[in-house]
């Protein structure tokens, strides 16, 4: 215990924690085991700080509170997105797990409807059952039906995708950018939409304009544990056919639409996390200068 509480050991643990939690290193997203490493390191870090005198103990208490809050929100919190057209009401949202992995539909606390979209991007959400209205802007999230709704952005157009299934016939699905839909046993997500597709000098795709002159999209297609990334472009149907995928996906059309995509979060331990940070800062400030 004494060795664990030495300045060098504490400093090394803090450095390791910084490396693992940094979004630039992205270790948490890359390796599932990283979360376990973070939990273990945090426990050791807190124990080492608690083994010291009063101010450092306070830092340890703050760090422990913050870590517990983040861990609780990691387990019990919910994150995802929702796409709404004006007048449309939903009771579910698309939940996402670590690394943006889609977990399926999850119920909201109440029905939520999109009432209006204002020119500056602010939207008006209504909770019909509670007779309540709230405004959500790109700069201001709001709590609706027990969840925080934020970052509204227009998705503008719906991509009509045809899935040819050989002997099983054909199916169509219409999706916004970022939205997921099912076509038979395939789950399709529009990862990126290029209304006016072109390649720059580095052969990187970009959109020349917002007008759908040469629409194209990048799709994430999954079936069970298998996944593919498929490129579709209206001008060249069926140009990309990845190995192992026995269907052909084509971009048939682009339907103009006034839909909005929002992020949805529920983090019950947010206040505890703030308290932990505050206590840790007070502990550091109180330490011998």
């Amino acid at each position, binding site marked *: 215990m004494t060795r664990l509480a030495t300045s*060098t050991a504490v400093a090394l643990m803090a450095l390791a924690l910084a490396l693992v*939690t940094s979004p630039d290193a992205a270790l948490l997203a890359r390796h599932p085991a990283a979360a376990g490493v973070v939990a273990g390191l945090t426990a050791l870090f807190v124990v080492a700080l608690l083994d010291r005198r009063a101010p450092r103990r306070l830092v340890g208490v703050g760090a422990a509170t913050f870590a517990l809050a983040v861990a609780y929100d990691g387990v019990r919190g919910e994150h995802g997105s929702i796409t709404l057209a004006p007048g449309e009401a939903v009771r579910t949202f698309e939940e996402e797990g670590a690394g943006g992995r889609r977990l399926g539909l999850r119920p909201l606390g109440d029905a939520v409807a999109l009432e209006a979209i204002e020119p500056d991007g602010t939207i008006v959400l209504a909770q019909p059952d509670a007779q309540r209205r709230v405004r959500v802007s790109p700069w201001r999230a709001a709590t609706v039906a027990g969840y925080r709704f934020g970052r509204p952005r227009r998705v503008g157009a719906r991509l009509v995708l045809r899935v040819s299934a050989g002997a099983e016939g054909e199916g169509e699905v219409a999706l916004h950018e970022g939205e997921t839909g099912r076509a038979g046993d395939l789950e399709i997500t529009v990862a990126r939409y290029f209304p006016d597709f072109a390649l720059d000098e580095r052969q990187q795709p970009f959109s020349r304009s917002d007008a759908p002159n040469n629409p194209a999209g990048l799709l994430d297609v999954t079936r069970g544990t298998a996944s593919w990334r498929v490129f579709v472009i209206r001008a060249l149907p069926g140009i990309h056919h990845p190995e192992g995928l026995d269907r052909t996906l084509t971009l048939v059309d682009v339907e103009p639409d006034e839909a909005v995509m929002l992020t949805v979060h529920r983090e019950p331990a947010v206040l505890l996390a*703030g308290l932990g940070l505050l206590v840790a800062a007070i502990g*550091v400030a109180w330490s011998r200068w």
Partner: protein
Amino acid sequence: MSGGSAALRMAVVAAAGGFLTASIVSAVGLTAGRPRLRRIAHGIALVAAALLLVLAAQPSAQPFVAFAVVAALPAPQPLALALAGGAAVVAGLVPVTGLVSGALMLAGAAAAMGAHALGRSLSAYLARGRDAAWPSSAAGATACGLVIALDDGRALRWGYGVVSGTARLDVPEAGLVLGLTLLASLGGALLLGADALAVADAPAGPSAAASPLARGLGRRALLLAAGLSLIAAVLVFRAPGWGVALPLATTKDLGALVVAAGLLFCAVPPLLAERTCGDALDDDQAATVLSRLVVVIALAAVLAAAAEGWLRAGTYLTPLTQRLLAAALVAFAASETAHGRAPARALALAGLLVAMLS
């Protein structure tokens, strides 16, 4: 270009020039033990910081203004003032977007305090009579790294380009000067590092050199690289045309070039001195206090980022919160450790700067 924005650009250029001048004067004053020069440097830095306050109303410029002001206020510290020169350039030229962010302003203040802590650590190192070639070599290597980072490493291929809208404008003359800057700073760093390694006695004095020729060449290479950095900055600034708004990436590149020039200029005076003046104990104590202060401000920035994330995006675990938390942890490590304090403080400073610029 309107008269207002032309005046603003002039003010930014004057502020950046002021910070660079102040950093050089303060480096000379610190090395030679001349308090009068340090007072002059402090005055120049305060005037430059006052010039930057005209940008305080622009949300995207506020973190950089906070950095420059906090870097200028406590004392004339060459490293902090060189970084403030780069911050002044970014503050003046960064596209006007975004919202006011208290978290980023606190991050700017913490980074400036981190630069002061690192500067005091280096002063303590030199005041103990240690070899000045090591920090100068590190300054050359940092400048080299900054030039390599510009435009995805195009300087390695003697090229540089500015993205304007969807078009890319190649600036071959800037690429040529950047390539030369890279070679000169790398040469200076290697010559000084090799010479410092070759010195037999461990606590060598600043003037002790295994090869006076290598040390002289290294010093001149750093000076050449500093001059070339400034020329490259002018060429990049002029490339899209006078009055044309610069994209964010080019603005950051300009800031990096000014920082590189400042670091290289500040690295030379200690190499020329017979013995660096200063009180090592006083500098060490000040650096320790400043390091602790960096942690407190960084934690406050994390708290502010979490609150802003929850209010604006609906979640407190935003990338900014995570970056600031990582930087606060590194700063905590730097304030804790008894070994390798200067590298740890440099790492903490880098972490805070990355959080500010991301």
